C-alpha cells in the first residue's frame, strides 16, 4: 500500500511539470536521476562485473579476463587529469570494436536488405501501381539526399517530389504515433484510478 502511495505521489509530481517547473517536479527529477544511476550501477555489478570479471578470475583462474579488466581500469583512470591519456587506449578499443560491428551490420540490415526488397518484382494488376509509386518515391527521396548535386533542373524536380513523399511519410508516422503516446497516458491514469483510488472496475 505505501508503495502505491509513493508511486502515486511521484506520478502527480511529474504531472505538475505540465503546469510549470516547480519544487515537486524538481524533487522527482533529482530523485529519479539518483535512483536510476544507483540502480544501473548495481545492475552492472551483478550482471557484468561479477559474472564476467570476478568469478572467472577468482574461481576459473581465467587470466584472459585481465585484458578487459585492464581496459576498464584504464577508462577509470580518467578521473585524474593526467589519466585521460591512458583512458584513450580503452576508448580506442571500444570505438574500434563498434565501428567494426557497424560496417557489415549496417551494410546487411540497412543497405542490402532494403535493396533486395526494393528490387523485388512487382505484383501484377492494381498492386503494380503501388509498387511503381514505391519505386518512384524511393528514387526521388534518394535524389533529395544527393549532396554533391544542386537541387536544380531534372534532379531538382526529382528532389521536390522526394520532399512531398517525405512529408506524407512523416505525416503518416506522426499520426500513427499519437496512439502509442496516448496509451502511455491511459496506463498511468488506470494506475491512479484503479490501483490508487480504486474507482475503476477490474
Amino acid at each position, binding site marked *: 500500500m505505501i508503495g502505491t502511495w509513493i508511486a502515486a505521489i511521484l506520478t502527480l509530481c511529474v504531472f505538475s511539470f505540465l503546469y510549470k517547473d516547480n519544487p515537486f517536479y524538481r524533487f522527482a527529477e533529482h530523485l529519479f536521476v539518483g535512483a*536510476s544511476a544507483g540502480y544501473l550501477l548495481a545492475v552492472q555489478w551483478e550482471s557484468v562485473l561479477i559474472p564476467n570479471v570476478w568469478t572467472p578470475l577468482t574461481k576459473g583462474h581465467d587470466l584472459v579476463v585481465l585484458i578487459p579488466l585492464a581496459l576498464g581500469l584504464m577508462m577509470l583512470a580518467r578521473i585524474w587529469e593526467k589519466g585521460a591519456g591512458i583512458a584513450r587506449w580503452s576508448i580506442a578499443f571500444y570505438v574500434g570494436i563498434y565501428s567494426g560491428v557497424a560496417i557489415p551490420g549496417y551494410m546487411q540490415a540497412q543497405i542490402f536488405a532494403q535493396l533486395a526488397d526494393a528490387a523485388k518484382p512487382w505484383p501484377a494488376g492494381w498492386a503494380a501501381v503501388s509498387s511503381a509509386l514505391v519505386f518512384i518515391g524511393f528514387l526521388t527521396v534518394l535524389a533529395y539526399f544527393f549532396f554533391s548535386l544542386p537541387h536544380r533542373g531534372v534532379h531538382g524536380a526529382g528532389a521536390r517530389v522526394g520532399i512531398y513523399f517525405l512529408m506524407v511519410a512523416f505525416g503518416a508516422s506522426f499520426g500513427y504515433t499519437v496512439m502509442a503516446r496516448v496509451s502511455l497516458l491511459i496506463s498511468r491514469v488506470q494506475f491512479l484510478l484503479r490501483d490508487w483510488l480504486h474507482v475503476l472496475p477490474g
Partner: protein
Amino acid sequence: MLRSGFVTPALDTRWFDPARWNILIGVILFTSFLVINLLRARGRKELYVRPIAGLKALDEAIGRATEMGRSVLYVPGLSDMSEVGTFAAITILYRLAQRVAEMGCDIDVPCYDPVVMTVLDGAVREAYSKVGKPDAFRPGCVHYVSAQQMAYVAAVNGFMLRERPAANIYMGSFYAESLLLAETGAMTGAIQIAGTDKVTQLPFFVCACDYTLLGEELYAASAYLGREPVQLATIIAQDWAKALAAAAVVAALALAALGHTALMQWLGVA
C-alpha cells in the same frame, strides 16, 4: 509452411561464409569509392556540396546565444557507441565546440552514455585548445546525467526550463523521448536544431524544431562544419554509392521483368 529447423554442421569450420559475398563486395566497393575520392580531394581546395539549412542555422544559433549572453545546450543523443549516430554526434560537437570557443559563449553537454561522456569531454577540450583558448574550457560542462532514458529526459527538461539556454541542439540517435525534449525546448522559446538517423523520430523533430537534419544529413554534418576537402570527399563517396544502389535496383527490376533474376537473388542473399 514453416521450415522444421535448419541444419548447420555442429562445429562450423569454414573460413568464409559464401552467403555473404554481396556484403563483402559492398564493403570493398564502398571503401574503394572512399579512397578514390580522398585522393581526388588532396589537391582540390573547394568541393561543391549543396547547402543544408539546418547547418547554416547552427552559426546563427551560437551567435544568438552569444548576444543574449545565454548558453547553448547540446544533447548528443540517447544511445551508446553501438549506434553510429552517436559517432556523428561526437564529430559534430568537436567542430561546433570550436565555434562556441571562438564566440566565447557557454555550452552544456548532458550525456546519457558514460563512455560517450568521456569521449565528448576530451573532444570539447581538444576543440577549445585547437582555437587557442584551452583555459576557456569550463570543466564539467560535459557531464554524465543518467543512462536511464526518462531520468535523462527529466533532468534535461528541468535544465531547459531553469537555465533557459538560447539554443537547443539535438544530434545523434533519439528514441521516443525526442518530442518530449523538443516540445519542452519549444516552450522556452529557444531556437532548436535537431538531427537524427532514427527514422521514427524525424516527424517529431520536423514538427517541433526550427531546423531538422534528416537521416543521412546527420552524417554529412560534421564534414560540412569542418569544410576540410578530405571530409567532404567521404560525402561524395556516399553519393557515388547511392547512385550505384539506385542503378542496381533499376537494373535488377529491369532484368527481372525480362526474366533474368540473377541480380535480384544476388542482392537478397545475406
